[in-house]
């Protein structure tokens, strides 16, 4: 009995091991990454300073940030976008594309299952381990991290180049540049307006020297009172904000933020900006997303800061 039992068990064990080996072989044979990026490649340096190796022909991309989704659509490659985050709500066609989590918590499995050749990430969502996992699947990860409007234009051109829409991207950037120059010409001789940009009120966040918004304020004929603060989105002292005596306060709100950030922080209620009624709400989607609509934000900002420069 004992011997009989043992031999059956041994056979069973052998069978289990064989099954495991067969399954592993099957799994490794159909790992999607192995076949995703074959053929000729080229190298493009991204904003993280990485030399990213990309296939010459790209027809499946995933975007992990709303501004990148907007750029992909704007350069005419929306039909090649196979995955997006739940924050990617513009243009409306984007909503028909499969969701892969949100920018802060992207979900690796559906991304791999979508077999993209390139995943676009913004530094806000850049997760080291996550990036490594994607690269392990032979999926290229391209990082954008613009610190000014020029950087945004570069993102548009690079994404256009990657998806094979270089000409359209260049045309788009040229148009955006023309609009930007028109704004800068209009406000050129106007006195600078001291601006405080309230990213959020409770607690108080603003924009620092590394934020593209600081550049946007400068181009709109303003001077951010926090332009020299280190970092891009620093948490800021209430009393320093009041002591800076801003002439105007900009509240990004009403877009994805909804009703959030619609009020000036309590500490600034006695600031010249509030006392003179110079508090301006601008759609946060036009200011917080470094994509093509940032120029809309620039125009709106310039109009409120210098209404007399834009005759109506």
């Amino acid at each position, binding site marked *: 009995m004992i011997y009989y039992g043992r031999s059956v068990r041994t056979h069973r064990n052998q069978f289990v091991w064989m099954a495991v080996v067969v399954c592993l072989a099957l799994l490794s044979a159909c790992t999607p990454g192995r076949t995703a990026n074959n053929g000729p490649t080229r190298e493009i340096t991204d904003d993280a300073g990485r030399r990213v190796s990309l296939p010459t022909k790209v027809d499946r991309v995933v975007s992990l940030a709303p501004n990148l989704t907007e750029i992909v659509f704007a350069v005419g490659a929306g039909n090649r976008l196979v995955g997006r985050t739940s*924050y990617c709500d513009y243009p409306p066609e984007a909503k028909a594309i499969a969701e892969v989590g*949100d*920018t*802060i*918590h992207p979900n690796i499995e559906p991304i791999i299952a979508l077999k993209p050749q390139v995943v676009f990430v913004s530094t806000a969502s850049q997760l080291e381990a996550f990036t490594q996992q994607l690269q392990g699947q032979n999926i290229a990860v391209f990082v954008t991290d613009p610190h000014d409007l020029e950087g945004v234009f570069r993102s548009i051109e690079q994404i256009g180049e990657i998806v094979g829409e270089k000409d359209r991207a260049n045309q788009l950037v040229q148009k955006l540049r023309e609009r930007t120059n028109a704004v800068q010409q209009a406000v050129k001789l106007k006195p600078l307006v001291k601006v405080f940009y309230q990213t*959020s009120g*409770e*607690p*108080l*966040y603003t924009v620092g020297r590394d934020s593209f918004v600081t550049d946007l304020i400068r181009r709109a004929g303003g001077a951010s009172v*926090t332009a020299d*603060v*280190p*970092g891009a*989105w*620093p*948490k*800021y*002292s*209430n*009393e*320093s904000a*009041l*002591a800076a*005596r801003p002439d105007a306060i900009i509240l990004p709100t009403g877009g*994805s*933020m*909804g*009703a*959030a*950030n619609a009020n000036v922080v*309590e*500490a600034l209620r*006695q600031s010249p900006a509030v006392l003179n009624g110079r508090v301006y709400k601008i759609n*946060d989607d036009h200011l917080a997303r470094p994509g093509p609509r940032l120029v809309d934000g620039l125009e709106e900002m310039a109009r409120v800061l210098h209404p007399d420069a834009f005759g109506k």
Partner: protein
Amino acid sequence: MNRVTLRKTIVACAVLAAALLLAIVLMSLLGSEPLPVRASLCALASFGTSTCGLTQDQFAILFQIRLPRILLAAAVGGSLATAGAGYQALLRNPLAEPYLLGISNGAAVGTMIALVFFGTIEWTRPILAFGGALVATLAVYRLARGRAGATPERLILAGVIVTTFLSSVIVFVTVLMDATKIRSFTFWLLGDLSGTSKALLPLTIVITVAGALALTLHARSLNLLMLGERDAFDLGVEVGRVRILVFLVASLLVGSSVAASGSVGYVGLVVPHLARLSLGSDNRISIPAAALGGALFVIVADTVARTIIAPRELPVGAITALIGAPLFIYLLKRA
């Protein structure tokens, strides 16, 4: 209270109260914006009735931004340290602390619910935070009550379970929330005093003072409870009533402080220990001393938080942990 203890209590409290007052004044002079020292002291001495030559902005910075924040720091520190001292006495366990028992996380969940559903209606926050703290307390207590009654070990174990469970709830809620709110939330979860609300400040101060007084008045019962529940009962302590009182008062203290400032860690653990190490374990002294010392500790920690990388800021919870952990290790080694 015998005369020696009374005198010791009064002397200790007087010294700590003087130090607290001094800290409030001195820390009011420090901030990301430099203020003229003499004029500021003059304005503070006049209780804000005279500007003493301060500009309108400087006056606003001193009285509408800095001082309210310092007073809130005092209230939060006093609340957490008192609650910690109360738990440690009741449970005869030096590790008993609002955080370890999950009370703070209960209050945090309550505050988050208020923020998500009632948004800008501020007064809902301390009420739901108190509710959350109380539910967490009752859950810990029910979980801890074995056949042999609630032993201190079981209580701590139950606290760990409730803490981790509620931490998961917090993570779950933050994942469901808007991306735009997450950043302020991560700050708030670490403990942050920069969003000082004028509407909640008086309430927080009143609850702190009342809670510290209530526990100090029951300090004798808590002293007897340290002999063991059985002995305390034989000596005439209404054990059940005292326990419920400590739970209620501590929930109120933790709830109001978490609603106002998020989860400022280490205060409830470090400060009562310091009080007992320096003044002895008589609760009649150590509870009021912990209340005053906690206020002092958080005021200093928050001043560091708002000045060290000015004009940017750190969350105060990061500073209390940075000061608290090494201090605690040092005290443990010395004791």
